[in-house]
């Protein structure tokens, strides 16, 4: 009986532990009015590189089958005071054309994260596949870019990795 309970407890821990081991990573941008946190899966690691004042948080996974990702938070004057949900259809088209300018066969859709943040998902349907998920908050572009390490076509699983990361995102506003 006791052995049975012990085994059940072990099994329960094995199920719960992986998600419990997810780390919350805080992405900061100096001189902004908010911080952003995302939950990093257990097998993910983070490196931050700064390009021209913009922090790029690269996320890599131990599993080589998983995609490459980065999240950047960059100031924008073009969309200062705007939000994805407040853009007109023409403005959405312009945003899509601007962000996808380097893509071969792009298309976009609008979606919301699990926490209710609006974003634009831009996907390149060409053989050199990549996807960009863009949010606009308080005059900043929050961009999650995802691509295969060989730049081959992204799978449904790859996109689920990206959207899961975005779903875990929380925007913490400073008072």
């Amino acid at each position, binding site marked *: 009986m006791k052995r049975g309970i012990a085994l059940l407890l072990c099994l329960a821990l094995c199920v719960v532990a992986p998600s419990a081991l997810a780390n919350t990573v805080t992405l900061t941008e100096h*001189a*902004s009015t908010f911080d952003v946190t995302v939950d990093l899966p257990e097998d993910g690691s983070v490196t931050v*590189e700064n*390009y*021209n*004042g*913009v922090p*790029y948080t690269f996320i890599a996974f131990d599993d080589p089958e998983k995609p490459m990702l980065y999240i*950047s*938070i*960059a*100031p*924008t*004057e*073009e*969309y*200062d005071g705007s939000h994805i949900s407040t853009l007109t259809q*023409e*403005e959405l*088209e*312009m*945003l*899509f*054309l*601007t*962000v996808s*300018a*380097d*893509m*071969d066969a792009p298309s976009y859709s609008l979606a919301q994260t699990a926490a209710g943040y609006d974003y634009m998902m831009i996907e390149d349907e*060409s*053989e*050199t596949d990549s996807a*960009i998920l*863009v949010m606009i908050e308080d*005059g*900043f*572009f*929050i*961009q999650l*870019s995802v691509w295969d390490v060989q*730049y081959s076509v992204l799978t449904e699983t790859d996109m689920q990795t990206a959207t899961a990361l975005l779903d875990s995102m929380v925007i913490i506003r400073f008072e």
Partner: protein
Amino acid sequence: MGKRVMAILFTLVLILGMAVTSSALAATMYVYTSNGKSLNVRDYPSKDGNIITTLAYGASVEVDQGFVGGAWARVYTSHGEGYCMYRYLTDSKPGPKPKPTTTPKPTSKSNLYTGFYDTYYEASVRPSSPGGFVHMRWAPSKSQPIHRDYYNGETLIVLASNGEWAQVYDAANNKSGFMMTAFLSKNY
């Protein structure tokens, strides 16, 4: 008397020298935003800076070339000195305000390499979105495989161009390939 004249002459030369120097360091640039919006000029080189004025799309502005502010440029406006984001300034006057167009530009594989001319200058990578990246490709076409990605402000040498595409060399990593000129900003 002689000393006084010399002092006055020296002062005049100094003032003239400063005027020449400051005008040599200022350059005329133009506002370009991908959505045609006006550009904010702030009192501090940061999004936290207060907006002191705005510059309309296509407007010219004097930019202090001697100011090293990363993503920010010091500009001189009718409202005085201010700061705006460098990525929204361009050397040449832009065309009409951009409008969304979905007409694709077909690329014929047979003429990928035509129209190129030799050139040589250093350029900074300027992604279309402020936190984006730019592909360096193996050939001058968006349908061609990607060689490497580059981020905001990375430096490349432009070796040749056909106006739309540039043949570039990355000296830091010994890589070469092709990148769209729209994503390259010439360094001075």
